[in-house]
């Protein structure tokens, strides 16, 4: 049996750990609220944007745009959006398991978030670019990534661009999800980043009037909707990250508390056993004297 001193030391160290995880839980919880709101509020916009684009593209049968061009998929790019820091449960591990499924030869990766970049470097995959984004993702962060994606797609380095990100479902559930970003046609066939019940939306087969002109409208829309798609995916990632971290830290705190309880019980048992033996010794000695 371990000595009381050892157990006391362990209890103290577990208590310290519990304090730290508790603090991290509180921080994550407050960040989580904001990140979740941002992700959920952004969904209607992302949804509508896709629906409008889908409607427009459908009424313009023979409209061509470099971002809409469908080609046979020989090479693909995957934008892997992960967190920068760990300690958020299995969130990144699940993403990486998905990422590892892509064909090594024909896939180039673009990493957004440090964890993903580390993973790709470790497994020696083709890493084309690495981006970081702030805790509150900004439009310019999204734009940088979107521009990189647009460039490799229009220069025909890849025939398809996908995004792999943890979709935020609720505080307890996040799901790794791959979404095709380019050609944009796939975006509305699968429904976009938001998927707020309405999905890509019931497409209405109508002939639209365009003001000022079809190509001006499409150009204007395509240019900034892609950026917003990526922004929305980054918001989803952040919401997932903070939720996962909050839950992971909550579990850690609970485990630590349980451990402290168990250790305290063992400690008391040993202490009492010690006292009993000592008492026994004393009474035996007393008996021997009398």
């Amino acid at each position: 049996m371990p000595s009381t001193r050892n157990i006391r030391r362990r209890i103290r160290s577990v208590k310290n750990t519990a304090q730290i995880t508790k603090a991290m839980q509180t921080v994550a919880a407050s960040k989580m609220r904001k990140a979740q709101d941002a992700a959920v509020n952004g969904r209607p916009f992302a949804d509508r944007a896709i629906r409008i684009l889908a409607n427009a593209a459908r009424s313009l049968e023979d409209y061509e745009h470099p971002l809409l061009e469908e080609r046979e998929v020989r090479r693909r790019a995957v934008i892997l959006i992960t967190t920068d820091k760990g300690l958020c449960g299995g969130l990144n591990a699940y993403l990486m398991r998905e990422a590892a499924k892509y064909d090594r030869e024909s896939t180039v990766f673009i990493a957004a978030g440090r964890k993903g970049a580390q993973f790709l470097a470790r497994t020696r995959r083709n890493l084309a670019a690495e981006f970081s984004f702030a805790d509150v993702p900004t439009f310019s962060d999204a734009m940088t990534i979107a521009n990189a994606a647009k460039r490799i797609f229009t220069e025909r380095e890849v025939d398809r661009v996908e995004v792999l990100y943890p979709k935020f479902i609720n505080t307890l559930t996040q799901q790794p999800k791959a979404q095709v970003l380019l050609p944009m046609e796939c975006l509305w066939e699968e429904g976009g980043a938001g998927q707020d019940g309405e999905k890509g939306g019931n497409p209405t087969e109508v002939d639209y009037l365009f003001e000022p002109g079809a190509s001006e409208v499409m150009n204007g829309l395509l240019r900034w909707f892609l950026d917003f798609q990526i922004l929305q995916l980054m918001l989803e990632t952040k919401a997932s990250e903070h939720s996962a971290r909050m839950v992971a830290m909550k579990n850690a705190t609970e485990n630590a508390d349980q451990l402290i309880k168990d250790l305290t019980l063992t400690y008391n048992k040993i202490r009492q056993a010690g006292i009993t033996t000592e008492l026994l010794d004393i009474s035996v000695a007393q008996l021997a004297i009398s």
Partner: protein
Amino acid sequence: MAATLKLEIVTPEGQVYARDVDMVCLPGADGELGIFPHHAPLMTLLGEGEIIARRGPEEDRILVTRGCADVTGNAVSVLTVFATDEAYLDEVKAEEARQRAEARLKEKLSPEETSLVQASLAHSLAQLKIKRRPRL
């Protein structure tokens, strides 16, 4: 009851406006557009200006800077980055936004960022202009 239009204004931060209205005036890129119920499907880019929504005798004005509008049958969805309902217009916030945008313009920015910051500046200036214009 005459037909109404469902007007929705959505920004990346959430829905700004959603109501049934009788008529909508949109600030199209090439000029004002008046939309009544049963309008032909129309897709338009928006410039800078006010969306005026008429509900009976009442009138809502929402300031927008760029974006697009999708008119289908009896629904108008407006997607824009900058939209402010004039009923909730906050002069202090607008002034802050203006200063932020001006400060950002002094930094080195990519062309796209510059255009975004300029739009944000235009939006805050338009807000201030409305707030400071004499009430009729």
